[in-house]
């Protein structure tokens, strides 16, 4: 008899159900999509019932690959920072406001004023932002009081699905640390913050370690999903936390970079990283007692494809691989061109929604290839700033690169050179979040001995060594990069005032 783990990854565009066996091998996966309604006023909503339907459909489908009686555990990774209020019967009271719903700017400011930005950062590891759950709850209280009054619990995407499977309300430390209401050091909800926010603390579910079995699949859920009744459900973690596990960052150090349309760098630490300038933020690690500070940027891979598709005259869109090939024709330093990648403003390290992107240092011999390379170098230099803050003096000799953007050889080379570290690339680049969820399920139910299982699940397939001789060049570029941003901030501010 075999043993399988079912990992659900509730992303922005759909749910991916993946099966792993007891050796950690990926057996099958399938995706069921759902849509996001973007509306004026920076609103972005999803229907929680669509989440559930996607989980049901993808479960039914993926289970056709095995004998479903062999399922031994279910767990999740999920999009974070959402706000979904359910009533006493567990029915959604409204469409879920997802992480990129920024309607609660006013509430974020009010919360910051009430408790103090620094204090909020000190408790939660995160700066005040309209992106977080608590600010969204404040918005509901103010603008939809009749809904707010009926809220029994506020749930994240994976927590809602977990509730539908088991009938139990819970969240995990990692997801909780993305709500702006969680005390990162004490690992519990913060009464001080709830008081400042004027929100009832009872609305938030109990927070437990990510490996906790919160319940068992009940009869009705079994009928809908095809998962046998009684299978243990492990609460899992947020997608950033699960990616951290999948990227092998399961003990102190071990930095990694996840490169997709956005990108982040993260590392595992034993304490929250509280930067005096608040340039990075910290989540509770899915492994109890650890933390994973993060620096995240808005436009990484998306900057690259945006640039090329906007500026390439011919109608057919250039592929990622075409662009990589072109960038390879330039040389380190991109012929003197600097790119500041702030096409959507920036989060880490500047936290400036007004920032804009630019190319600097162009001349008559600047080529399209130089500009392509400058975009890659700009993304890498921006990530390097956050990486330095988090790793500090802890000089890890290597960093792992995951995500869809990791597959270009030129990206790997530039990242290794600019980070000044050996870059390791695992065999599977885009499965890290699902793998993280499977690890939590496996460790939580005893199928996997411990988190070092990840090395077996996703071994390093390639190591890219930095070119030592390029160090002086890139150190100079890195200095210019920061100076360029600093010298343009007044102009960014002036633009916004217009």
């Amino acid at each position, binding site marked *: 008899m075999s043993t399988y783990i079912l990992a659900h990854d509730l992303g922005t565009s759909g749910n991916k159900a993946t099966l792993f066996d007891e050796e950690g091998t990926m057996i099958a996966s399938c995706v069921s999509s759902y849509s996001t309604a973007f509306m004026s006023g920076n609103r972005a909503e999803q229907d929680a019932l669509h989440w559930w339907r996607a989980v049901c459909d993808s479960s039914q489908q993926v289970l056709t690959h095995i004998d479903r009686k062999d399922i031994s555990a279910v767990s999740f990774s999920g999009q974070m920072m959402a706000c979904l209020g359910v009533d006493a019967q567990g029915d959604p009271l409204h469409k879920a406001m997802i992480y990129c719903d920024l309607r609660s700017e006013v509430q974020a400011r009010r919360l910051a004023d009430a408790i103090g930005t620094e204090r909020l950062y000190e408790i939660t590891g995160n700066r005040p932002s309209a992106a977080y759950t608590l600010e969204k709850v404040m918005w509901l209280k103010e603008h939809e009081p009749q809904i707010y009054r009926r809220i029994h619990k506020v749930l994240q995407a994976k927590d809602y699905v977990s509730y539908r499977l088991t009938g139990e309300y819970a969240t995990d430390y990692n997801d909780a640390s993305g709500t702006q209401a969680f005390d990162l050091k004490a690992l519990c909800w913060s009464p001080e913050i709830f008081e400042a926010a004027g929100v009832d603390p009872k609305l938030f579910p109990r927070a437990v370690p990510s490996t906790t079995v919160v319940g068992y699949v009940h009869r009705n859920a079994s009928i809908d999903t095809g998962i046998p009744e009684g299978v243990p459900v492990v609460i899992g973690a947020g997608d950033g936390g699960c990616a951290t596990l999948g990227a092998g960052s399961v003990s102190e150090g071990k930095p990694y970079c996840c490169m997709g349309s956005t990108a982040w760098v993260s590392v595992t630490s034993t304490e929250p990283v509280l930067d005096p300038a608040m340039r990075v933020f910290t989540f509770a690690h899915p492994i109890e007692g650890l933390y994973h500070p993060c620096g995240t940027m808005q*436009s990484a891979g*998306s900057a690259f494809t*945006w640039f090329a598709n*906007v*500026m*390439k*005259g*011919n109608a057919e869109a250039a592929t990622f691989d075409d662009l990589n090939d072109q960038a390879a024709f330039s040389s380190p330093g991109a012929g*003197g061109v*600097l790119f500041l990648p702030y*096409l*959507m403003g920036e989060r880490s390290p500047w936290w400036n929604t007004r920032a*804009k*992107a*630019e*190319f*600097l*240092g*162009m*001349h*008559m011999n*600047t*080529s*399209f290839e130089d*500009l392509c390379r400058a975009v890659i170098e700009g993304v890498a230099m921006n990530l390097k700033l956050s990486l330095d803050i988090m790793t500090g003096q802890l000089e890890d000799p290597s960093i792992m690169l995951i995500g869809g953007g990791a597959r270009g050889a030129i990206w790997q080379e530039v990242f290794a050179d600019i980070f000044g570290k050996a870059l390791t690339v695992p065999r599977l680049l885009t499965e890290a979040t699902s793998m993280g969820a499977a690890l939590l399920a496996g460790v939580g139910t005893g199928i996997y001995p411990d988190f070092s299982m990840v090395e077996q699940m996703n071994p390093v397939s390639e190591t890219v060594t930095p070119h030592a001789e390029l160090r002086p060049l890139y150190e100079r570029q890195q200095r*210019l990069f920061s*100076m*360029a941003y600093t*010298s*343009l901030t*007044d*102009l960014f501010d*002036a*633009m916004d005032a*217009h």
Partner: protein
Amino acid sequence: MNDRPCFMGIDIGTGSAKGVITDSTGTVLASSSLPHNVDSPHPGWYEQDADGVWWHAVKVLSGRLIQDLPSGYAIRALCCSAIAPCVLPVDRQGTPLRPGILYGIDTRAHKEIEELTEGIGAQQIFDMTGQQLSSQSCCPKILWIARNEPQVYEKTHKMLTATGYVNFRLTGRYTVDIYDGIGYAPLFNIHTRKWDPTYEQQVCPVDLLPELLWSSSVCGYVHAQAAEETGLPQGIPVMGGTADAAAESLAAGVTEVGDMMMMYGSSNFFIMRTHQLRPAASFWAAHFMQEPQTVLTGGMATVGSLFKWFSETFPGRSFAEWEELARSSQPGANGITILPYFAGERTPLFDPDAKGVIFGLSLRTTPGDIYQGLLEAVGFGIRHNLEVLHQQGEDAKRIIAIGGGSSSASLMQCVSNITGCVQQVPKQKLGACYGDAFLAAAGSGYAERMGGIEQWVDIAAEYVPDPALKQRYDKTYSRFRTLYESTKDLL
């Protein structure tokens, strides 16, 4: 002899020469052009053979024009202009001792420029000629010949420029026009308009330089041998002539104080008539075609070359398609600001190390926004020049736009909206040789002296600024200026 009078103008450019014959009202009777080559025997060196290229062009074009001239006309005067300033050493017989060294594109004398500037002092040079030394200057190149080709230098009787050489071949007289005098810093005294021996120890005796004269005055008369070689009537007057750019500005109709020729070529060049001589660190001051006319000249390092770079770097669209895309953007380019300093900048920044910047990109930016930003970059660069001119006490009252860029309605309207200046585009596209024909007519008394070019020049298009847009651009212009100041030390 009841033949009607007509006038010949010939301009020798870098890549070709053009000639025209007009009547005394500017009607074109014949025109022709002749391509030629530039030699570059060494990186940074650019030369042309004085006989094989310059004099050859005059002979061939004269012959063709005379052949094409309708009957009933008689050529009464001739005037030539050429690339300037060039350096051509000739011996006592007026025979070239080496190929002519071309203007600013020839950078061989960079060491001599530094030495002279250091030895004499930048301020002293400026006080004498109103200039700083650059690759455009003759004196460092003369010094270069003295050092590197002593056998040439020893035999040198006169140092001529290209116009001066063809004028010598036509008349036997060694001359250079006063407009071209500023090319001879620091031997030309811009205040007395005479050669000044103060620094001849450092360069060369002023005796080696030809006689200075006004462009519109008679330099001499076509002599027998020249008449035989060219087919021109013996004895007709030859005017002093000038540099190609000055002749171009005449052809554009520059007449009054405040008139400004704005050349949109691969780079930008302008000549503006001023109230008085105003040596200024940001521009080049010069005397013009006759007393007491003065000008300030200047220009941006890139216009056409910038658009060429852009369309080659982002291929697949024609300029018409790019302009169409730009129309879907809006004034202000949706927040895009571009510094056009892809080849450094000439006036008024004089920053050869300045670089190109595209500022203000977001995920919403379209290709049309960027092209609109490029058009606006040219407008801002010109506005910057106009503002600094204004600070010198000189305002452009009428801008006459010429060159390839003047045929782009998008660019012209954009520059007018940003600068708040009306721009006129002349119908006549013959350029400098047309101005030469006018100088020939005016100098020989057949056209109203220098005032009459207006009657010669028909306006094909006029671009009137939109005052509301001008006001909107005030903000984006200040962003443009700040962007340079914020980034200049970085790159």
